[in-house]
């Protein structure tokens, strides 16, 4: 069901771990829903993301999107990191099954949450960054089911 790229990132996830004294840390998701993603950012004085690590409790897609997201934001400045949307992550992974799109949203939100944390701590405003939802599932609406 997953593309080769997804499987590769799942089997060999890049940047797993924590960053001590990270510039920003963001945690999103909800263990009740079976997915939690935590993103650590190490950002230099010029606003360049020097390093990025993650820890994820979630499905294969959640792991792969975390891994890909860390790869994509590394080296970018905080403003450009906002361009790493869930769509960008999915494209970089050659796509995800429809039922797994929300896992990539989790990755986007985790980056935003880490950036928000960083911005708050440093009194910076990142254009276009809004306060992330604390629970990615909050805004979702249940799909209509008919029996």
């Amino acid at each position, binding site marked *: 069901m*997953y593309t080769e790229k997804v*499987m590769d990132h*799942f*089997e060999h*996830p890049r940047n*797993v771990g924590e960053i001590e004294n990270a510039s920003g840390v963001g*945690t999103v998701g909800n*263990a*009740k*829903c*079976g*997915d*939690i*993603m*935590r993103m650590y950012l190490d950002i230099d004085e010029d606003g360049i993301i020097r390093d990025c690590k993650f*820890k*994820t*409790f*979630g*499905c*294969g897609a*959640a*792991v792969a999107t975390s891994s890909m997201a860390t790869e994509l934001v590394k080296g970018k400045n905080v403003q450009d990191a906002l361009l790493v949307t869930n769509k960008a992550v999915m494209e970089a992974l050659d796509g995800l099954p429809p*039922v797994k799109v929300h896992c990539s949203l989790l990755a986007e939100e985790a980056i935003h949450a880490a950036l928000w944390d960083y911005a708050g701590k440093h009194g910076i405003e990142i254009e276009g960054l809004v306060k992330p939802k604390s629970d990615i599932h909050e805004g979702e609406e249940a799909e209509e089911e008919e*029996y």
Partner: protein
Amino acid sequence: MGKLIYLDNAATTKTAPEVVSEMLPYFTENYGNPSSIYSIGGTAKEAVTKVRERIASSLGAKNNEIYFTGGGSESDNWALIATAQAYEAKGKHIITSKIEHHAILHACSYLEKQGYEITYVDVDENGIVKLDELERAIRPDTVLISVMFANNEIGTIQPIKEIGAIAKARGVLFHTDAVQAYAHVPIDVDEMNIDMLSASGHKFHGPKGIGFLYIRTGIKIRSFIHGGQQERGRRAGTENVTGIVGMGKAVELSFSRMEESAAKQKELRDYLIKRIKEEVPYCRLNGDGVRRLPNNVNYSFQFIEGESLLIMLDMKGICASSGSACTSGSLDPSHVLLSIGLPHEIAHGSLRLTVSEENTIEEMDIVIDAIKEIVDKLRKMSPLYED
């Protein structure tokens, strides 16, 4: 496919080669419509009759109490929906359990929308239906109790005989979804006071897309699929002769070696249960220790999520399942695990291993090593672990 280790026999089983051989002539030689008058139709009809007899005798039932269907889900839907409609005049209340298969639960949701009332009885922490609660739930307008024989996720076997006795004493019909139990453990419909019973061929090395519903004589039967006169006018549709013949062979095989097969499975099961308990920290065996299907192991591993675990097992050629295969595609944690009291995050990290008699202890060793390695790897990646 290489050296696979298949441990998902509760989802579906390999069709036995003997079953396939038995089916073959009915595709290209005895392909006649059993309802027809000429000889090749007659050959097909005889074959169907023989299977009906074999299934009836395996349950202590009569031949004309067995109706072939397209599988377990159809049997469940038929049993619930058509019976509810047939007994509408008596009442519109049905009792079932919280850990039924979705084929039962969603049929119940449908009935609720049609104005029926359903009581979902609790189970204890091992997944056993609370009999006192069940009995208290019976009302004058209760027409049917439906409790599964054995659970597909955690393998818990229900006190079916006791439930049957309660139902009989209170004049309520009793249906059991025996999709996981039939041809795995002995069942006697009279001794257990079972009025209706669902089964599905592919759960015991028969083909997919064929099942049956047992309906005790005297019960008002409405059709669910309306049309031709097949199955004595109760289930329309040209008989799936090859499916029926294949299921019949699978019944023969299963019943001829049920004891040895169960003993072999229990050995594998208990080996898995013991070693995992001893060697993997933060784990919990789900389901009852004793009243348990011979083939079922279900563990929750804290801090990790089931799908990741499954994919990594798959990469090592191990086929397993997390929750019920029938509901994958859904991302909700298993309603069964929640019903036995697991918190959501733990329910998400569950693994079901269901063996067959073809598995070996050597395979179990490989599987246990793989589980240990993968659980460790995923925990290292988990933000919940050592938090």
